[in-house]
């Protein structure tokens, strides 16, 4: 394919491009670079400012999810009890409506590093399909909370089906780069629904076991079962609570199963059970008594916390 080129043609080929064209291209290139650099600069300023706020945030809220048929007020008496043993925890309640909107009551104190937050749902019915929806609604509430209050870690407590919602949320929605869950406590959570025989795995248990590898590896987890008699707490069979080990055991950092009997060990009474309130205070709270401006540090009653 070699073609003989005349010296004229060779000169033509080795000639430099015209200066004007070069300058035009240079201007266009500079404009394009500026079009990337300027928005990039402003984007990065915002991103770094946000990262700084989140990184330096000291807030680690305790977030409660009630069980089926319970509203955002489910934990009122529990939190009253907790606040009677300690001071300085503000209380925020959120209900996620079926159209993804949030209705919010209460507020978080300015210097509160460990507020209590309850997330309830307008549709609080039982059943796997509803629980799946509730997990999604919970993730919406969490996104709102994280944007509003800028925390990067939290502690979770779920009563009854609230524990299932937590498990689904952790497996499907939690972005572990953004948010860390330090501890999780589920109280009377029926991991195998109302099934007594562990050989009969329900759909929800099968799904949770299948996705268990997505659980954060560093959670410390307590699962509390109540028993009125030798088999259940009146509603949830103890075998169903125990089935949680197939999901959490050997997946998370620590899994502890606690069986509570005696007074107030009926399913619905569990959140008010004095023993369980003690566990919450002991295991879940890091700052039982917080210093707030104008409040004297109270180290009196209820300082069973070892931390």
């Amino acid at each position, binding site marked *: *394919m070699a073609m003989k*080129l005349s010296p004229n043609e*060779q000169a*033509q*080929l*080795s000639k430099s491009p015209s200066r004007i064209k070069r300058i035009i291209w240079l201007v266009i290139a500079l404009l394009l*670079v500026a079009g990337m650099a300027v928005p990039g600069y402003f984007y990065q300023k915002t991103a770094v400012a946000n990262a700084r706020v989140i*990184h*330096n945030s000291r807030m680690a809220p305790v977030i409660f999810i009630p069980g089926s048929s319970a509203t955002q007020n489910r934990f009122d008496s529990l939190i009253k009890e907790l606040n009677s043993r300690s001071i300085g925890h503000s209380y925020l309640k959120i209900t996620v409506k079926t159209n993804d909107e949030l209705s919010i009551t209460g507020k978080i104190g300015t210097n509160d590093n460990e507020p209590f937050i309850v997330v309830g749902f307008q549709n609080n019915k039982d059943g796997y399909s509803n629980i799946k929806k509730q997990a999604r609604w919970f993730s919406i509430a969490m996104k709102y909370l994280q944007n509003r209050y800028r925390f990067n870690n939290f502690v979770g407590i779920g009563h009854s089906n609230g524990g299932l919602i937590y498990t689904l949320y952790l497996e499907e929605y939690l972005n572990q780069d953004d948010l860390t869950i330090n501890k999780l406590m589920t109280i009377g959570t029926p991991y195998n629904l109302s099934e007594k025989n562990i050989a009969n795995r329900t759909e929800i248990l099968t799904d949770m076991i299948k996705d268990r590898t997505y659980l954060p590896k560093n959670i410390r987890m307590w699962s509390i079962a109540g028993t009125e008699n030798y088999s259940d707490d009146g509603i949830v069979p103890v075998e169903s609570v125990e089935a949680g080990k197939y999901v959490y055991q050997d997946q998370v950092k620590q899994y502890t199963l606690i069986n509570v009997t005696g007074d107030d060990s009926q399913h619905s009474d569990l959140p008010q059970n004095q023993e369980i309130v003690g566990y919450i205070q002991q295991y879940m709270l890091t700052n039982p008594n917080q210093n707030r401006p104008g409040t004297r540090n109270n180290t009196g009653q209820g300082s069973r916390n070892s931390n």
Partner: protein
Amino acid sequence: MLSPMETWLANRYLRIQQYIRQKKVYIAVSHTLGSLLPFVIIGSFLQAFARSALMANGFFYNIYHVGEWLPNARNIGQVVNSLSDITINFSLFIAAFLFAKYLARLYKLNDGIVGWTALLAAMILQTNIVNGLNRVNLVSGLNNNGGGVHNLFVGLIVGYVAAQSYRSLTWIAAHWQHAPVSWQDETFVTRGLQAIFPVSMILAGALGLSFLISLTGQQGFAGLVLYTIALPRWVFSHAIVTIMIITFWNNILNVIGLSGPLSPFTQLTIDSSQSTTNLSTALKNGSLNNLPYPVTFHTIYDTYGAMGGNGMVLVLVFALILFSRQPDRRHVAWWSLFPTLMNFNDIAMVGFPIFFNPIYIVPYLLSPLVGMFVGWVPIHFHWIPPVVYSVPNTTPSFLAGFMGTNGNWAVLLVSVLALIASLLVYLPFIRIDNLVWLKTLAGELPDQQTEEVKISGHEVIAQRTGPAVKKSESY
């Protein structure tokens, strides 16, 4: 016109060109890369577009807030990205097919059968037989074991071995079998029948090898090769000399078509504990002074040594647009400009090409070292802060330093200096490349097409009917 050193290099290069243009392997590689180019251009363009503008952590997606005015962006991104997967991440197999086919043409074998056998062999070798055939590792995402352009060497090896085995097996078969019986001439059917023995032997060989490979626990041949050359983790200490040596080794692997330890998808450089410590110190103090680890792979290599992907390819693309006289180089440079800005250098590797191209291998190896040195000096003397904050994926590399320091102008200046310094490394080689092209055009250097005709009696790919190269290009 050329400096004495350039003249010396040019003479050496001319001799190299004269030699390799007669080599069957080189001829077949050139044609393979040329035929691979359309797929790579399409795939790389889609990949760069999807990853920068349609994915949540992409550069354009973030700075132009694409998610807000194009709500379906991420879904569209998934689709576009999978389209790019089946073009660019299929390159290993395409290369095995094409290389075997062109070698077969040069050896006057049945190129269709040889090419297809090589493709099947490559697929078998990328299958983990122990894990089961349903887990065929063809499009395994953008990981190291995938069939992307960066692992092209594996495809070429498979193609070469398949073609050579076919050749010797046909020879064996011809001497072993009886001559065709006289009452039947050779027909299309008998030509096909002759291939049964070599094809079945090659496929059986591939199957056996694949079984052995899956016993090692690796996902396919490419995975095994990469595992073999992988460096142990302790090697990656964050000192400037180590960084330079590993970059050099990585880029040597790159030019022969293997992804080295610093592949952009391993994230090894960003996810080090040093980077994390730097970041949390910076976030805590609110300033970039006195960071514990100013020199890391991330602050030096990612920022100043890999502009436009490994080997400072962005610089080469700029330089070719500005200084090359060859229309084909300039066209490819324009095509690769956008993906290279987004740090995807595949088009450049295949298009100029950089793979197996003696003229660009040397600057490809040297320019990152020069760029990193330019970045390292001011960091070492604390004139500029190192890069700390994370930036979106696919951020153009000359902005990565600027944005990663939250808008430090001195860093931007140093990035531009590193770019110019690497440009100076590439420049003499581009001038020599121009010279060789002119000599070939003028007929002083035998061109490759002539050599092909000498070897096999025909050009490997027939010349197209229209004019292939414009005699003069207006700038």
